[in-house]
């Protein structure tokens, strides 16, 4: 995907690398036994280790290591069997020890990659430089008192994975796609909730610009951006700003900047030069972390199916290419979808053997051969169900601000599918039924019956409606017959209106064309 930005002096290429801080899903903190729950009363999830009391020592949470290694495997990355925890030394109110335990020279995970599915259907591989484990800091509240800052250490010591990309991204859109894909992988793995609003996924963006193919420009780091939308806005703004600076004859200064989401601009952070001297050194309280190669292999085998594999499988069972990405983005949605089509297949009136084969085919299409008719049963089921979910359920979920996966699970979509299969309802009725199902928890058939939503497939009734409209609109009929064929859509609309949307649109089309040709 070409993503060059135009300036006065020609085109510019934007070069972006992202550092994502992903909060590890764990019950206890990285080096202490205090809880990690979000939203607790201040300083109630703090141990004497987290508050860096004298003589307190860190002990590594083995599960957090497992989560990091799983994530590394999910990013197709090298796992370092020997890694080291270092201290990053700096003073700040919410950093109780005066250092953060992190991994500097020898991270637990090395090089990996993420494949981006771009909107134009192409795929692009983005390099992962490394992933390391580190502690989160506490929270400083600056707005509680005119001359004081309040400090809550509940978050201090919670495990984070810092995932660093190569400077392979070339546009704000790609950065957005990268974050969505990373989020999806993390959620599939169950290693991070990746909820940017709760702050458990935060992003630092390194942005520079250059003439296409030229040497890398000076980069700026935009710190701590907390939503995908803001990341895209911040990059967009920052790239423009840098181009402007250079085109006016200036030079970009390497610095740390903050994104002001209210104004949509980035601004320079006032940091003292010496605060960057972090004096990293290996934490003498912790021995080097040694992993067992067999244990890593065991974890690799236990990984769930990841989005890329799921996508290939869904395509093979008949999900359309233009909706598959939104269907697989969330694992729960994909799982719910899969359960729905299995249910739907089981309602197709197939023999038990056929049902079994079909379901097995859904689970591993590359391992199974189906008869053409059975294959059609599967692909029609998954095609219709997936399009219902993506086109209707998602819209309703968005409108109601409800979780997509929960809604998919809650609604009896197989009942809806059955009505669609039997052409009892038209596509345009689906949204109304889905809304009603979401509101009332009734099943689709009940709603259709109660609301009289049944599709009119009675040719006589439709023909009567058409006749009435053609008689009323004689001028337009003349225009149509004179060659203005796009008026057909107008007539279809009129008929649908007259039948309160219940007419089968395909039938309306067919009959109208016949009568107009008349």
């Amino acid at each position, binding site marked *: 995907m070409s993503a060059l930005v135009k300036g006065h002096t020609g085109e510019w290429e934007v070069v972006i690398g992202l550092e994502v801080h992903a909060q590890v899903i*764990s019950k206890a903190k990285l080096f202490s036994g205090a809880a990690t729950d979000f939203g607790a009363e201040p300083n*109630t999830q703090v141990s004497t280790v987290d508050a860096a009391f004298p003589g307190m020592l860190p002990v590594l949470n083995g599960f957090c290591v497992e989560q990091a290694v799983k994530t590394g495997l999910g990013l197709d990355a090298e796992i370092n069997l020997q890694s080291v925890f270092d201290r990053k030394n700096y003073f700040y109110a919410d950093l109780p020890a005066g250092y953060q335990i992190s991994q500097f020279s020898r991270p637990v995970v090395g090089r990996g990659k993420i494949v981006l599915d771009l909107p134009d259907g192409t795929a692009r591989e983005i390099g992962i430089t490394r992933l390391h484990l580190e502690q989160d800091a506490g929270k400083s509240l600056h707005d509680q008192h005119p001359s*004081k800052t309040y400090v809550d250490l509940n978050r201090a010591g919670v495990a984070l994975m810092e995932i660093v990309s190569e400077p392979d991204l070339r546009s704000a859109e790609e950065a957005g796609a990268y974050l969505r894909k990373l989020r999806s992988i993390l959620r599939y793995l169950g290693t991070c909730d990746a909820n940017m609003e709760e702050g458990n996924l935060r992003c630092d963006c390194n942005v520079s610009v250059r003439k296409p193919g030229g040497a890398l420009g000076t980069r700026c780091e935009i710190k701590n951006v907390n939503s995908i939308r803001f990341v895209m806005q911040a990059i967009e703004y920052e790239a423009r700003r840098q181009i402007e600076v250079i085109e006016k004859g200036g030079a970009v200064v390497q610095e740390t900047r903050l994104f002001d989401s209210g104004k949509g601009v980035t601004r320079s952070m006032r940091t003292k030069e010496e605060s960057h001297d972090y004096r990293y050194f290996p934490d003498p309280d912790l021995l080097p972390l040694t992993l067992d190669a067999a244990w890593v292999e065991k974890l690799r085998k236990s990984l769930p199916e990841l989005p890329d594999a799921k996508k290939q499988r869904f395509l093979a069972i008949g999900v359309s290419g233009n909706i598959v990405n939104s269907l697989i983005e969330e694992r729960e949605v994909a799982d719910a979808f899969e359960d729905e089509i299995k249910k739907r297949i089981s309602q197709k009136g197939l023999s038990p053997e056929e049902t079994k084969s079909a379901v097995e085919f859904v689970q591993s299409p590359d391992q199974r051969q189906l008869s053409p008719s059975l294959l059609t049963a599967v692909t029609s089921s998954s095609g219709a169900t997936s399009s219902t979910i993506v086109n209707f359920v998602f819209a309703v979920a968005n409108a109601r601000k409800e979780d997509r996966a929960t809604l998919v699970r809650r609604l009896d979509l197989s009942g809806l599918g059955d009505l669609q299969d039997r052409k009892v309802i038209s596509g345009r009725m689906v949204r109304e039924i889905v809304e009603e199902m979401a509101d009332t928890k009734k099943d689709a058939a009940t709603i259709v019956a109660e609301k009289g939503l049944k599709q009119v497939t009675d040719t006589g009734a439709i023909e009567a409606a058409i006749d009435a409209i053609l008689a009323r609109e004689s001028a337009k009929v003349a225009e149509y017959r004179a060659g203005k064929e796009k008026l057909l859509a107008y007539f279809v609309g009129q008929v649908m209106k007259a039948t309160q949307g219940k007419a089968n649109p395909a039938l309306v089309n067919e009959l109208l064309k016949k009568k107009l040709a008349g």
Partner: protein
Amino acid sequence: MALDKATVARIAALARIKVPEAELGALAADLSKILTWVEQLNAIDVSGVEPMTAVAHAKPPLREDKVTDGGIRDKILANVPETAGGFFVVPKVVE
């Protein structure tokens, strides 16, 4: 390595230790003497030698992912110089 007053002032700022201007000279002399003394290590060839970061005798057990601590705010705040509403309180930080 002889440290000048400005270097000592920079290191002191990095370590967040206020050193009165009047003491900088004497401190610089002290630190220079120590640094010069430790530079005797320059005489040793350490090429190919791995640094010893820890005295590791055995692989330590890792912690289980269980909540075993926290919920002790009174203890955490018992020694605090300034507190309000369950928070630690410090002079305002401007970001």
